[in-house]
């Protein structure tokens, strides 16, 4: 069930219609849980079993961990949770990739092996809810969280429909306490929540799907060396499309949760205003990068027991490689992770070596590092969006080789594309150190109504079919 669909509008009317009329908090939570299961079943009913499995496994494992007095016993239950969750994730998400890789390796060794086709649909949101439940067992194992006393509360944490299929990845520590007492719902929260939902919907329907997707699809469907300007436009268009698609979804999720009285973490913080590549990753898909920081990077560092540069670099490299593979089961994503890792490692190394020089304090460097971070991200997305490595390489070489395919964007494409690109960059630089909410609240009422009206009209009149969110595939 897409947020940008008619059936979701119907679903939301039913949820909000009943939610506010149920007085008892326990029943209200049960209602939300039931509706969250229905929300997921609207995609694929059989795959609901996977969520139920994950919920049951982690609820059980966390309780056993808490009861265990010996560390070894706790570790066994942690391993059970990790193997269970990551096993299911690996089977559905990486099975095909592993099989293909095995066939390729076998072919190199002279063994011809033709397996049965791996026609298994990827369960929507599996990477998100798996990581969410893992954060719970890992926190209980580390003693940072007490296991939830209520199975239905825990199930609601795993399944909460606004962020179930594409995040933000919510930590149990942040969400479960909100279920202990009835949430406070105010008119202000509902109004701001609906406004965020509308803003997210605008980003998704108008900017990502309506303007950028047709241009990006055309450029990335082309073969051979293209004109440099066309490739550049396609790359810029895809960064804006991906940002508006994913941050639009996150904004809608946060807005919906707020309407129901819950607070979800931010997932983006004006990433295109980042000064440097590490700063970029502190602002892009924050709930994922902080997940890996806390549950992968930090333990690796801790394991090393020294703060040497080599240890930092190894931990960073490994973390970004896994982040790449989290995004998709292909060598392109693995290379994308390696690309990011190499950039981060170089940046950290340079910071350690020459970061203390006074010369960097000049304001001009801030802009240079900002542009540098964006350009690096721009080239990294060639690996992210291209069909395979050869395709990414063709697109990259288009900047240096004579054009083979004279694909050029039309005037309409340019007229539609340039204003949102400029607007996104301007907005990000404005929001670098300021709160979006503060700016929105300071806007005069008449201007606010005009902007909201313009967004509503654009959403209704952009005339694109309902497109899935890019991050649903992860």
């Amino acid at each position, binding site marked *: 069930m897409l947020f940008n*669909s*008619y*059936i979701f509008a*119907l679903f939301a009317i039913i949820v909000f219609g009943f939610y506010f009329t149920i007085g008892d908090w326990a029943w209200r939570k049960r209602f939300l849980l039931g509706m969250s299961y229905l929300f997921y079943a*609207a*995609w*694929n*009913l059989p795959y609901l079993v996977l969520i139920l499995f994950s919920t049951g496994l982690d609820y059980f494992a966390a309780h056993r961990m808490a009861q265990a007095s010996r560390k070894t016993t706790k570790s066994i239950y942690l391993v059970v949770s990790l193997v269970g969750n990551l096993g299911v994730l690996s089977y559905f998400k990486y099975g095909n990739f592993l099989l293909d890789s095995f066939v390729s390796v076998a072919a190199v060794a002279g063994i011809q092996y033709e397996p049965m086709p791996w026609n298994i*649909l990827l369960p929507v949101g599996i990477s998100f809810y798996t990581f969410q439940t893992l954060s719970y067992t890992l926190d209980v194992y580390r003693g940072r969280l007490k296991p939830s006393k209520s199975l239905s509360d825990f199930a609601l944490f795993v399944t909460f429909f606004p962020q179930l299929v594409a995040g933000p990845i919510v930590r149990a520590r942040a969400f479960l306490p909100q279920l202990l007492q009835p949430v406070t719902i*105010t*008119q*202000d*929260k*509902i*109004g*701001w*929540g*609906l*406004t*965020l939902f*509308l803003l997210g919907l605008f980003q998704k329907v108008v900017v990502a799907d*309506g303007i950028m997707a*047709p241009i990006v*699809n*055309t450029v990335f*469907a*082309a*073969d*051979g060396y293209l004109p440099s300007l066309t490739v550049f436009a396609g790359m810029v268009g895809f960064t804006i499309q991906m940002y508006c698609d994913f941050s639009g979804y996150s904004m809608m999720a*946060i807005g919906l949760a*707020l309407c129901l009285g819950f*607070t979800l973490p931010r997932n983006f913080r004006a990433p295109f205003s980042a000064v440097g590549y590490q700063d970029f990753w502190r602002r892009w898909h924050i709930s994922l990068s902080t997940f890996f920081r806390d549950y992968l990077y930090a333990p690796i560092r801790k394991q090393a027991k020294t703060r040497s540069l080599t240890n930092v670099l190894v931990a960073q490299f490994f973390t970004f490689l896994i982040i790449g593979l989290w995004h998709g089961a292909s060598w392109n994503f693995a290379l994308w992770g390696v690309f990011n890792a190499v950039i981060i490692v170089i940046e950290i190394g340079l910071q350690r070596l020459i970061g203390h020089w006074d010369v960097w304090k000049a304001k001009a460097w801030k802009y240079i590092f900002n542009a540098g971070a964006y350009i690096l991200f721009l080239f990294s997305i060639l690996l992210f969006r291209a069909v395979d490595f050869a395709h990414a390489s063709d697109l990259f070489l288009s900047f240096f080789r004579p054009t083979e*395919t*004279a*694909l050029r964007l039309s*005037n*309409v494409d340019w*007229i*539609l594309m340039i204003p949102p690109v400029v607007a996104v960059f301007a907005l990000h630089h404005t929001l670098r150190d300021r*709160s*979006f*909410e*503060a700016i929105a*609240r300071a806007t005069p*009422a008449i201007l*606010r*109504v005009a902007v*909201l*009206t313009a967004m*509503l*009209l*654009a959403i*209704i*009149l*952009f*005339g*694109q*079919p*309902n497109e*899935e969110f890019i991050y649903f595939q992860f």
Partner: protein
Amino acid sequence: MSARGNDRKTDWITSLLAALVCTAIILTGYELVLRAAGAEPNFRDNQARWSFVREAAGRDQSSDSIALLGASRIRAAVSLSELESRYPGQSVYPLGYIGRSPCAALQDLADSTDFRGTIVVSLNANWVDCRPSPYQMHRTVVRYHAEWNWARKIDGQASEFITQNLVFTDPHHSIRHLIVNTLEAGTPLSNKDYEITRKNRQLEFDFAPFSAEDLAQMQRRSRRAYIRRVGAGEGKRPDRWNAGRSLLSDAIEKITARGGQVVIVRLPTSGPLLRAEQEHFPREQFWDDLVDALPATAFLHFADDPSLSGFETPDGNHLDHRDAARFTAALFDAIERDGVDFKRP
């Protein structure tokens, strides 16, 4: 982004309600302007509407059913009412999709159904490349129809209800088209609503209101769109061509092996578009290669049959709806002359 930590209260609900009222007023005005200009509600064709038809085709196991695959050309050229009166009692499934190659849909019918009727495929040489791309139906077939369920059906019904009652939901009146119209015709509103989608997925083009100059502009636009697609790499490379041809061949073999028939047709085009098609995919090199290589029941190129080559495509690409019934009769007469029996028990 949270509502916490900010003491200043803003009346968002009032702002949203005011915006909703303003939006409703503007949309009502736009609807009235469009209706006054002669526009009518149009069915918005989408993945859901395709899936409704595909679901029915998937259940069908009779040998006298007919499926039509291709893009806008076949949906405009073949009159469904003419087919129904020509073959009474037989089911017809219009499974074409605007701007999309039929390759993935043919593979889907071969692999995921037991369809054993006759499949008429409108195929252009530039669509033989079967790799997933924006010009393919993979997304519809694999990503959408594979998860076709009650929720998508409700969504499809809701979409149908809205589009058949409100003119402004027609993509031809979208903001993108307003901009295109302004740039190309100097006026944002096009009062010439020439492309109508019927509830049964019949596509109708009405070129009567257009001057010769308008039609010449449309022909140039058709050519530009084609060049852009061909420029975007649709299948000219030998490896892509061979791979696509092989996939098509496998799908056709599978269908014919269970008693089905597959007819490949090349529908009429004209003017600058036809010249561009011939330039990029010369018939002797590409169409003739398909005829030699594919195990289809019959092939039909419009240029080879005098009863088909006389039809005009005013925008270069599509037949006018007034010609569709005559063309359908001529096309199916020609296919039957090639030995294809549509009334098999």
